[in-house]
């Protein structure tokens, strides 16, 4: 049973934008301080609601990338989608001090906390890294003894969100292994080239089978990664997925 305690009702509230940071050429991170926030579980998301002057509204879901902490803030990382409605607004319009409506946290399955244990395998395609980063960061602060492997597929080296932090954690944390593959740029030292495949998964599983696997990314990425993980012998029940569908961010 992995159901997290959900509040009786999720109310819309406002959050103030406290910081904006360009993470990659196409991804910006936003630190939000909701007016009333009582925490979340790593892996959860929030719903954002934007309102035009005439009352027209648009809603989208965005995963939280920060770890649960006492700051009263959350960090979202949003990829700009070319024909999008909400993501271009975040990239081109949103500034520090703006107020944005949201509700959450949401999600009771694609979540991890210490009682669920490990080892954990986190497989990310592109901006699918966001909820997995929350899990990775949370594990580092509450259960650094639990082994974790992150497999992340990015187009290019510069598209790797939170790259410096990932590389630093891989260097400093003896229980964390980082496997990076780039699909549109030749490999650099220590990094792989090409889409994730059998050999890459075998490498990720070399330290032993994970108790829990979390896969997040586009639908084709998640389908391919989940099939590879299952083919490597990981039990079906231990694999949790989140697919980013309807590319209309």
């Amino acid at each position, binding site marked *: 049973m992995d159901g997290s305690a959900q509040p009786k009702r*999720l109310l819309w509230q406002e959050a103030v934008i406290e910081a904006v940071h360009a993470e990659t050429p196409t991804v910006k991170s936003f630190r939000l301080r909701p007016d009333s926030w009582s925490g979340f579980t790593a892996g959860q998301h929030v719903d954002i609601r934007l309102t*035009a002057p005439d009352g027209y509204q*648009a809603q*989208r879901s965005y995963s939280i990338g920060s770890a649960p902490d006492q700051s009263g803030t959350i960090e979202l990382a949003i990829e700009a989608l070319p024909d999008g409605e909400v993501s271009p607004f975040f990239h081109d319009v949103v500034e520090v001090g703006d*107020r944005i409506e949201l509700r959450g946290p949401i999600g*009771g399955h694609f979540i991890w906390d210490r009682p669920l244990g490990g080892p954990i395998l986190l497989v990310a395609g592109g901006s699918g890294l966001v909820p997995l980063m929350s899990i990775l960061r949370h594990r580092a602060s509450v259960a650094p003894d639990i082994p974790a492997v992150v497999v992340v597929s990015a187009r290019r080296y510069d598209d790797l969100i939170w790259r410096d932090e990932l590389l630093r954690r891989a260097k400093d944390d003896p229980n964390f292994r980082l496997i990076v593959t780039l699909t549109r740029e030749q490999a650099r030292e220590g990094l792989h080239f090409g889409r994730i495949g059998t050999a890459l998964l075998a490498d990720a599983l070399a330290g032993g089978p994970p108790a829990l696997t979390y896969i997040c990314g586009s639908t084709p990425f998640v389908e391919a990664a989940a099939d590879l993980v299952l083919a490597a012998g990981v039990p079906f029940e231990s694999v949790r997925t989140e697919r980013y569908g*309807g590319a209309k961010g």
Partner: protein
Amino acid sequence: MATRGFFGKRPSEGESDRLPPGQYLTEDFPVLSAGPTPRVDMEKWSFTLKDGVKPVARWTWDEFAKLPHVKLTRDIHCVTKWSKFNTAWSGVMIDDILAEAGIEPPTAFTLAHSFDGYTTNVPTADLVNGKAMIATAYDGKPITPDHGGPARLLVPHLYFWKSAKWVNGLQFTKRDEGGFWELRGYNMYGDPWREQRFTGD
């Protein structure tokens, strides 16, 4: 509150009438599932009706294929905000499944079960009188595994997580028992027009 600097890309008039609040129109067909896509062996496929714990009717794939199949073309709405218009399904209406089994619905609540262990609850009244089917084809072709094939429940007037993929049975229950997502904060009913996404909406 109006959001500073937001004007939006609104749908055309014809579209907006068919879009429930908070939804946007998509042309592709996104995939949402809690786990990997199961590959269901047709030799082992079966569909079972249960009254509580008691099985009352069961069909193999070949037997199910002989039931009357009809077409149902409807708009569908996913709780993750996308909607898709005119999705063309075919399959067996729940009314015809019950008639074939020779039973009236024994209780007011139903729990749909799937091969991967997924469950979701739907009031029985929302499954009968032409409202829902067990779909076996989409756009004239067998439903692909990522979209729930070989067979999925189709309850198009509720958020799409109610349309259980890889369905293998319907269980009539005395109480309204929450399924997989309903136990994880999602709405017990899920009417997109009343925007019943989460518990208490």
